[in-house]
C-alpha cells in the first residue's frame, strides 16, 4: 500500500509543477510607446512588430515585412520591442528583444520601410536607441552589459562594458552621451565610448536619463530621483519616493515631474528638488507621463488615466481603468493628443483638455 503511495509522489510532483507552469510569468510582450514619424504614428505591438498608422488610426504597414525577411535572409522575429522607436534622418531605429538593433529607411510615400541594416548586440535589447544631432552616432544598451556605439551604416565603433544589463535608453547632450546601468551606475561617455564620469546610486538603474540645461535627471530602483551636474556628475540633489523610479522624468521650465512605482507623481523644483506637490494615482506608475500644455497626463499600471494641472497638482479629470490591460508604455504627445498604449497593444487617443478617449486601432484593428 505504502509503495503505491510512494509511486504517486513523483507523479504528483510532475503534475503539480506542470500545472504551476501554466500561470505566472509569461514571455516578453514589449512596452514600446508610440512615436510620430512624419505623418504616421509608429507603435510597437505586443507581438514584436512595429505598426505604422495614419492620423485616422488605419494600419499602413507592419515591420518585419517580406522585403525585410528577404534582405535578412531569414524570417525576422523581434520577440518584443520595449524601447520607444527613435526617428532621425528619415530612419527609424528599434531595439528587439531578439538582441538586434534595426535601422529602417522610411519611404517618402509612407509605404513599407526598407531594412537598412541590423546589428547584433548579443543580449536582449530593452531600451531604445539614441541618435546624435547629425545622425552619425547611434548608441544603444544591451542585456549583454554593453553600451554600443555605431555609425550610420551599422558598423560598431565602440563598446563600453558595464557591470550589468543596460535597459536604459541613452540620452545625448552636447558632446556626451548618458546612460544608466543595472550595475547601479549612471555613466557619461564621450563620442568614442570613453567614460568621462560615473555616479553610483544604491540600486539598479533601468530608467532613462533626461538632460536639460546642464542637469541630468535619472531615477533608480533605490526609490530616488537624482539631479546630477551634466559635465562632472556631481550630485546636485536627490529626492526619495516610496518605490522604484523606472519612468523617465519630464522636465518643463523649473519643474521636474517624477513618476514612481509607489503610485505617486511628484512635482519638484529643478533647482533644489523641493517638493511642489504630490499626486497619488492609486497604482504604480512605470509609464512616462506626457505634458500637453498645462495638463500633465499620467497613466498608472491598472490603466487609470488622469489629467492633472501641471502647476497646482489638482486633478482635472480621470478615467478609471480606461484600458483593458495594464499600461506600462510611455505616453506620447502627438498633434495635441496623448496616446496611451496598453499591454494588449491597444492604443487610446486621449484629448487632454476634455479628458475623453477613443480607440486608435492597436492590435484589434491590426
Amino acid at each position, binding site marked *: *500500500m*505504502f*509503495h*503505491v*503511495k*510512494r*509511486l504517486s*509522489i*513523483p507523479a*504528483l*510532483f*510532475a503534475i*503539480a*509543477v506542470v500545472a*504551476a*507552469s501554466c500561470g*505566472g*510569468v*509569461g*514571455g*516578453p*510582450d514589449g*512596452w514600446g510607446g508610440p512615436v510620430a514619424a512624419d505623418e504616421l504614428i509608429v507603435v510597437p505591438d505586443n507581438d514584436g512588430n512595429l505598426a505604422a498608422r495614419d492620423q485616422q488610426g488605419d494600419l499602413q504597414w507592419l515591420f518585419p515585412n517580406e522585403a525585410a525577411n528577404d534582405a535578412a535572409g531569414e524570417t525576422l522575429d523581434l520577440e*518584443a520591442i*520595449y524601447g520607444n522607436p527613435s526617428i532621425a534622418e528619415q530612419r527609424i531605429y528599434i531595439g528587439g*528583444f531578439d538582441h538586434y538593433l534595426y535601422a529602417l529607411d522610411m519611404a517618402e510615400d509612407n509605404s513599407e520601410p526598407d531594412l537598412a541594416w541590423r546589428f547584433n548586440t548579443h543580449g*536582449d535589447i*530593452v531600451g531604445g536607441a539614441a541618435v546624435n544631432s547629425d545622425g552619425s552616432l547611434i548608441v544603444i544598451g544591451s*542585456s549583454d552589459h554593453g553600451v554600443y556605439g555605431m555609425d550610420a551604416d551599422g558598423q560598431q565603433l565602440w563598446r563600453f562594458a558595464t557591470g*550589468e*544589463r543596460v*535597459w536604459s535608453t541613452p540620452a545625448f547632450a552636447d558632446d556626451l552621451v548618458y546612460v544608466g546601468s*543595472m550595475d547601479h551606475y549612471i555613466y557619461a561617455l564621450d563620442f568614442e565610448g570613453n567614460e568621462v564620469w560615473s555616479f553610483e546610486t*544604491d*540600486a*539598479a538603474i*533601468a530608467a532613462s536619463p533626461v538632460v536639460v540645461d546642464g542637469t541630468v535627471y535619472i531615477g533608480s*530602483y*533605490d*526609490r530616488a530621483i537624482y539631479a546630477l551636474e551634466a559635465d562632472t556628475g556631481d550630485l546636485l540633489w536627490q529626492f526619495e519616493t*516610496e*518605490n*522604484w523610479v523606472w519612468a523617465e522624468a519630464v522636465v518643463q521650465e523649473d519643474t521636474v515631474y517624477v513618476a514612481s*512605482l509607489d503610485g505617486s507623481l511628484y512635482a519638484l523644483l529643478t533647482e533644489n528638488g523641493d517638493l511642489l506637490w504630490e499626486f497619488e494615482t492609486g497604482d*504604480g506608475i*512605470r509609464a512616462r507621463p506626457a505634458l500637453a500644455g498645462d495638463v500633465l497626463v499620467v497613466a498608472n*499600471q491598472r490603466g487609470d488615466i488622469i489629467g492633472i494641472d501641471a502647476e497646482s497638482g489638482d486633478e482635472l479629470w480621470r478615467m478609471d481603468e480606461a484600458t483593458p490591460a495594464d499600461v*506600462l508604455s510611455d505616453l506620447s504627445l502627438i498633434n495635441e493628443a496623448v496616446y496611451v498604449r496598453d*499591454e494588449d497593444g491597444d492604443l487610446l487617443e486621449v484629448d487632454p483638455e476634455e479628458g475623453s478617449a477613443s480607440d486608435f486601432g492597436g492590435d484589434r484593428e491590426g
Partner: protein
Amino acid sequence: MIGFIWEEVLIRPMLNLLVILTNIAFGNFGLGLILFTIITRVVTFPLTLRQLRATRAMTSLKPRIDEINKKYKDPRRRSEETMKVYREAGINPLGCLGPMLIQIPIFIALYAVVRVALGNTPESFIDLEERLYNWSYIENAIPLDDHFLGIDLGASGGIPLAILVGVATWLQTKTTYSLRSAPTDPMMQQQQQMMQWMMPLIFGYITITFPAGLGLYWLATTIIGIVLNYVAYGGIKKVGIPFILQPEEEAATNGASPAVAAAAEVQPEVEQALDNQAVSRSKLKKLRRMENARRRSKR
C-alpha cells in the same frame, strides 16, 4: 482564499527570504538557494526525524510483518494485522511520507519563486517588485545574480546538472531502501526497483525542463538527505560505502522507541494470542505486561 494563502503565506515570504539569503551570500542566487535548502531542511527536521524513526522501526518489525504475510492469505486480514502491529509499536507508517509530502508545496512554490526572481523580461521585474516587501535591503538587491558555477539558474537546466540530480536521487533512494530487508512480496520488490530508477529519471527530466534553480535545490536537498541517512542509520554501508557509525543491528533498540524494540521481539505466547484472537483484551494486556517484566529482568 486559497490563492491569497498561496501567495501571502508561501510565495512572498519564500521569495523575500531568498532575496535576503542571496544578499547574505554575496549577492549570488545559487548560494542563497543552497542556504535556503539548509534552512528548509532544519525547519522540517522534526518531520525528517519522525520519518527516520518510523523507517527504522518498520525495519525492526520486518520479521513480524513477514510472518503475518505468510500466515494470512486474506489481504484484508493481513492488512489489519499489520496495522495492529504498527499500532502496538507506536509507529505511524504514513510518517515516512511526511518529509516527502512537505517537499511538494515547497518545490512548486520554489518553481514560481525562481520564475519570478530570475525572470529576464521587464514584465517579470514588475511582477517581482509587486511581491517584494517594502524594505530597501531587499528592493536594492534587484537584479539578482542568476549565475552559479556557470549555470544560468533561471534558464532550463543542462545535461550535467540533470545527471548530478539523477545520480544524487538514485543514491538517496538506494540508501533509503537499503535500510530495510528486501520485501518478500515480488510485486513490492518490483515496485521498489522501479522507484529506484523512476525517481532519478523524473527529477533529471524536471531539471532539464524547468529552471536550473529547481535542479540545484533538489540536488542540495538530496545530498542533505543522503548525509542524514548516513548519520541516522548508516544506509550507505549497504551500498558498499564504508560506514563507522551506528550499526543497523543496534538501531532497533537504540533509536527506536522501547515499544518498537519490544514489539520486534514479541514472544510466542503473545504472538499466538494475537494471531488467534483467542484471548480477551485484558488477558492480552496481562500477557504483554508479564512479557515486558520478564524482558526487563533479563537485562
